[in-house]
């Protein structure tokens, strides 16, 4: 700003008789116009610096820390390369945490995809413009309020005296609910303290992240493709299998990346609705906090990253990114 005003002062001094010089903004523009490399640097420099230093920097710090170990007597981090911390991951209790979290993430992702698909298809292909914006709003609305608040709202809904429990009672299905809660892995004293409850809340909070990419993928499918399929003799179910599903696949993969990785890293939902059995996020939290075992916390954090890398490679093999 200041350079512009000072050089425009210069221009006044030039007097009317002399040829007018280009204004400073023009000169700056011309200077930049002939140097596209410089423009690129100015545009990409700050975000790239952010990515490299803050984002990748912290990730590599994580990676380095995961190869250190904790001295059990002094409680200090030993800064020597070792795989001992990773070996700790495979102790029975730690490995159960990994299994539990990955299993939950897979179940949540599959359920969210199944729930999201019909709605996405309806929004993308069949809804009127008005219905489309209403449904869009309905999907996005929960994201406007705090995630924490919504999780605790669900804790009330799922509580023993909560609305779901009451509803089962009204329908005289209390027995069914008790039977569900008595099942070994998913059950617990009430829905608000059980893996089933965690599962329900996870599906709820990540569902929009599944709906939006699938809907975006289906939005790009011209209606004439569906008509062409029917025209060539395909019943709706065959059109779904041979045309809609393959074309929506990249969207399903994109959505599942969100719901899968978000579930892998979350510690709030299992803390709010879980019992003493940990998920990865909780393990990371407690190891780096209370027990000060930064290396083990870092090693735990590497698990979701490694799982996601393999997941993306598999998705690429299946051709998920060809249509992007």
């Amino acid at each position, binding site marked *: 700003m200041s350079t512009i005003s000072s050089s425009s002062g210069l221009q006044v001094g030039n007097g009317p008789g002399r040829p007018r010089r280009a204004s400073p903004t023009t000169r700056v523009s011309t200077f930049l116009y002939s140097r596209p490399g410089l423009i690129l640097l100015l545009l990409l420099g700050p975000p790239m610096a952010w990515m490299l230093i803050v984002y990748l920097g912290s990730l590599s710090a994580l990676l380095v820390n995961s190869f250190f170990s904790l001295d059990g007597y002094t409680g200090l981090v030993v800064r020597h390369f070792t795989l001992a911390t990773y070996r700790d991951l495979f102790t029975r209790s730690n490995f159960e945490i990994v299994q539990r979290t990955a299993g939950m993430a897979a179940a949540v992702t599959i359920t969210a995809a199944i729930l999201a698909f019909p709605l996405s298809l309806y929004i993308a292909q069949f809804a009127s413009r008005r219905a489309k914006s209403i449904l869009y709003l309905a999907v996005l609305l929960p994201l406007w309020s705090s995630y924490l608040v919504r999780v605790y709202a669900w804790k009330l809904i799922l509580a023993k005296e909560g609305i779901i429990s009451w509803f089962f009672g009204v329908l005289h299905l209390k027995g069914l609910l008790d039977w569900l809660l008595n099942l070994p892995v998913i059950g617990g004293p009430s829905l608000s303290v059980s893996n089933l409850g965690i599962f329900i809340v996870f599906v709820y909070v990540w569902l929009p992240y599944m709906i939006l990419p699938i809907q975006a993928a289906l939005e790009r499918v*011209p209606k*004439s*493709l569906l*008509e*062409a*399929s*029917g*025209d*060539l*003799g*395909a*019943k709706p179910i*065959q059109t779904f299998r*041979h*045309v809609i599903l*393959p*074309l929506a696949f990249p969207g399903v993969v994109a959505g599942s990346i969100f719901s899968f990785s978000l579930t892998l890293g979350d510690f709030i939902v299992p803390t709010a609705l879980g019992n003493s059995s940990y998920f990865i996020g909780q393990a990371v939290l407690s190891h780096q906090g209370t027990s000060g075992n930064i290396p083990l916390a870092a090693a735990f954090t590497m698990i979701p990253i490694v799982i996601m890398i393999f997941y993306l490679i598999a998705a690429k093999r299946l051709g998920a990114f*060809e*249509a992007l």
Partner: protein
Amino acid sequence: MSETQVPAVRFSGVSRHFGEIKAVDGVSLDIQDGEFFTMLGPSGSGKTTCLRLIAGFDRPTSGTILLHGQDVGRLPPYERDVNTVFQDYALFPHMTVGENVAYGLMIERVPKVERQKRVVEMLELVRLSGMYGRKPSQLSGGQRQRVALARALIKHPRVLLLDEPLGALDLKLRQQMQIELKVIQQRVGITFIYVTHDQEEALAMSDRLAVFNLGKIEQVGSPAEIYEHPATPFVAGFVGVSNLISGETARTITGTTDTFSIRPEKIHLVDPGAEVPYGMYAADGSVRDVVYLGLYTRYLVELEQGGDLVVVQQNLNTTSMDVLAARGRKVRLLWQHDHNRLLKDI
């Protein structure tokens, strides 16, 4: 044998209304087996809706549609013996050319070996033999158009529907495809129902055509009938260029105020005061505008009695210099009595 008497498609009083809009309004029509039939009209005239009604993508509000004698009004597309070439081709982007063409057979569970054989035959028919493994995105517009045609023809439908299939192609390719489509139709011998807004295309390709306007059929006939004997002012104006003369101007030329149409290419342009031969109408005016178009020249002549006439003259002995000098000149227009077409309404 009686089969040949049954029309391929019969519309009886078919209407399709979208709320207040009457997209198709009481259309009755017979299309014969093996015919190349064109539905011609401006956009929004109802021709594409008619095609979609035959294909089954849409259902009539009232009236019946018979396909080879069978009422198909409530039949879904996948149970009708018709196939469609879409305006945007609607090729499946995740499949190769071969898989696209094979789609109908794959759905029918035709064994792989036979499927393969028929796809190769089809690709040969549309001259795309080497393209089996390509993706649609790797093809040019004209090639995509042929894939769409091959995909629609592979099931040997009794009726093929084509929705402005050449609309996206450039002029040269269009003219080449017009000829190819006609050849293919004669080779496979099935009914083609062709929708277009291009009157030249309609005249060039069709055995018969129907001219649509505002959801209704204005006229059905052979290209020559439609061109030479337009039944309504709309047909006269839409198919080719026509001069419509009515009222007082018409009376000074023909003696009655009945509206008539005269084609621009039927009018002779002569010097003012030239003799009027027997059996010819005459009108005097001055040339207001000249457009030199290479093959021919288009003149806009302002009549003394009021009104304008478009006149087209082939550039047999004239150069661009000559014709452009005609601007502003007084001329006499002559045409034969029997080239005048009296029109039904107005």
